[in-house]
């Protein structure tokens, strides 16, 4: 557990969008998918997923429909809308810029200054 990282504030939405972009998922599936693609390295409070999901639905980035899960439970499946895909692209670009900038800033050595 201790090697899991607390996710940065504001990044949960991005993670959800990314997870859902790989294929329609229900809520628990989103959690599993994030765990899977992050190599179980990120710690997410499970309940916090839902307010975020509803927020994204309301913003029109996700759309939800009821269906049946793999173990025959009724479940709500989320998938990206066109707006959601566009947003994911923008956020990814933004994140990459930020990560690169943070990476180079934190990697700076005394002689480079």
């Amino acid at each position, binding site marked *: 557990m201790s090697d899991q990282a607390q996710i940065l504030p504001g990044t949960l939405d991005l993670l959800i969008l990314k997870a859902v972009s790989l294929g329609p998922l*229900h*809520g*628990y599936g989103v*959690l599993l998918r994030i765990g899977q693609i992050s190599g179980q390295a990120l710690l997410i*409070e*499970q*309940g*916090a*997923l*839902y*307010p*975020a*999901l*509803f*927020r994204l*639905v*309301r913003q029109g980035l996700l759309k939800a429909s009821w269906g049946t*899960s793999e*173990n025959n*439970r*009724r*479940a*709500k499946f989320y998938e990206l809308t066109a707006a959601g895909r566009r947003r994911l692209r923008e956020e990814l670009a933004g994140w990459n810029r930020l990560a690169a900038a943070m990476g180079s800033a934190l990697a700076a050595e005394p002689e480079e200054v």
Partner: protein
Amino acid sequence: MKLLAYFRSLAAKFLRRPQAEDDIEEEMRAHVQNRADDLERSGLDRAEAERQAHIEFGGHGRYKEESYKALGGNFISTVGQDVRYSLRMLRKSPGFTATAVLTLAMAIGANAVVFGVLNVLILHPLHVPHPESLYAIQHSNEPSSYESYPDYLDIRDHNHTFEDLAAYGATMAGLDAGEKNPTRVWLEEASGNYFDALGIEPVLGRVFHASDEHGANSAPYIVLAYSFWHSHFDDDRNIVGRTVLLDKHPFTVIGVTPPDFHGTLMFFNPQGFIPFVDRELIDGENDLNARGKLTVFMTMGHLKPGVSQAQAVADLNSVGTWLGKTYPKDAGQRTFTLARPSLYGDYLGRPVKAFMTGLMLLAGLILLAACANLGSLFAARAADRSREVALRLAIGASRLRILRQLFTEAVLISLIGGAVGLWGSVLLLGALSRWQPIQRYPIQVDVHPDANVYVVALLLAVVSGLLFGAVPIRQVLRTDPYEVVKAGSTARVGRRLTVRDLLLVVQIALCAVLVTSSLVAVRGLARSLHGGFGFEPENAILADTDLLSGGYSRQQTPSMQKRMIDALAALPGVESVGLANGLPLGVDAGDSLVFTDKTTDLRQPNAAADPNTYSVSPEYFHAAGTALLAGRAFTWHDDQNAPRVAVINPELARRVFGSVDNAVGGYFKLPDGTRVRVVGITEQGKYASLAEAPAPAMFSSILQAPASQSYMIVRYTSESQNLVPAIRNTLRGLDSGLPFYVESWYKDLDTNLFPARMATFSLGIMGAIGAMLAVTGIFGMAAYSVSKRLKELGIRMALGAQRMEVLQAALGRAVKLLAFGCAAGLLLGLLASRVLSFIVYQATPRDPLVLAGAVLAMALLGLLATWIPAQQALSVDPVMLLREE
């Protein structure tokens, strides 16, 4: 478009909240189940797996709440949640809820009733098109509108500022639609242009127009009022064209007015309308050309568009100047003002407005007192709930959310209270609308509530809810959850003056004001009922008729009057019977200018007095119970052949002769030059109103100043039983076609006492509500302070405190506040009562009885309200109490 969609989703969230709630709930449950499945697969047993899954999920309720917020339905659905929670809290304390709802229902109900009446009387008085530009012409020197018919015609034709001027007078007639007994009806005698000037269209047939008039008695038409058509002719649509007899003269029914048109004088609902030019048929005299006879009751019309009131007054005054120049004998310079016609200009308008405004103010005070009352109750409740509040704060509720919850509770209570109050007031206003306070006159006020009343009541409810809901704000904001949970909710016994104390003082003061004012009013009325009338209404029955309505000519009148007097006097148990053409404090018989004997120029400015005049039979003074101070009463020999004589009252004697002593045997002159000898002096009485200053009055012998209007006062011995049927039979035996009216004199006086009675009644109600509020307020405060300090009281008793000391500790503060509030309230009440003395006769605040009464009342109320809490304090069982913690 987006906004619309947003609102739609908002509405959908609100309306289908259970659906959204179920969805979220189900989704979260599925999540936990899925997680538990996985955990079970990794080797845990099912129960442990589910437990673990729940823990990992985190705060279920919190995430559900946040999900709502995320869905956008947050505000409305939390309001829904608040409302449901509030209802649960209110159900848990039914005593508190009932008290609060009842208090508000009374306060808001009182306001709604007063506003409903105010709304009808002052804000929306007449059901005519464009009432805002309708004005009556009023004399500038006194609040009256009387005119002679020729003067009215001149003002109508010579002014340039009114679109048209209509005029009307009121009269009474016997209406015979083919039945045996004619019905007495009140009619408006209206100028031909009356309906056209007001813009009134008939619901049936037609109304009369100016073109119908071709000189005296040329238009024998009657337009029926809707209610009379409904009650008397059963909505018979074939009535148009039928002929009815009015005072035995044939009139053709030509139409029916709309249901909401009751003439142009508020209160007074005539049963029909006839053209003014037919006056002679009903009133027996052709005075259409008499410039000295004030036959028109009111003149009114719409101002032309763009004409200001000042312009209209200037225009009217120039007509007045012209009238004065053209007819110097009849009128001097005339000046006018404008007034609203509905309450007869300022005559009724001013006192009614003053009184209603005063009443509205008192009602406002009641609401304020109720708010103060509920505010302190709420503050106490919030203090009691400080542990709950602290817990909620500790587990993460925002203070805003808690305040919103408290406000929801307050507004909910005030809305329920408002609804109950409004319901009551609608019932009351409905009853008032049906009520006919005075049998003799067609007086009825339609005060059915309209949208205005509902809106005002709703607004008052919400505002008062916010007002008293705001009281505990500071308390909640300052709550320190840690302190409260640690120390428990035992409040510190502060010596500081708290908001609650202040509210209580304010409330008690307001209630004391209400109690004092109503006592002043009641006492004033009680006094006005005793003494000073100048006659004795006890043991007297009034029978009145108009011989003209019965078809008697001028020549036949005196003998018929004598026959009626003799017939009634012969009834067993009757002491004496007097007859008069009008009665003091009853129907006005008229007035006449009076000049000293030396005056030669008999014009108005030279008159010595303008007394009320009455034509009376010889036995009148005995029958009326009016004492003669000097001289003699009339005899049957004071007739047309004898010199003209009069009995006058002391005030007239003083004005004409300078003193009462040398009046008997003296002479004075009437406007036509007749010399009149004074043969007697009566006691001073009240003539026009109870509140009047001593007024002059003159009595003439009915044989010398004949009149067809006949009021017979039948004085009977105190042991005689109900004489009314016998009187009816006797009169019917004399002439079955004569319309008449029999009533005890006391009942008849109602007319005059009506305003004072109404005033006293409504003030009494206000006072009673004020007293009730005082009781609940003091009770709430006392009960609360006792319950707060039960433990302390228990310890005191355990240590051997005496009963008095316990009471002192428990209630000392409440009593002190009570005394302080009472003193302030009494002082304010006495000041406020000065205003009352303008309305209620003989209402003076400087009355020791009133003062004592108010003090006693407040003390009793205080005692009553602290009784139960005191008992509770004394019955404390220290052992039980100490064991509880």
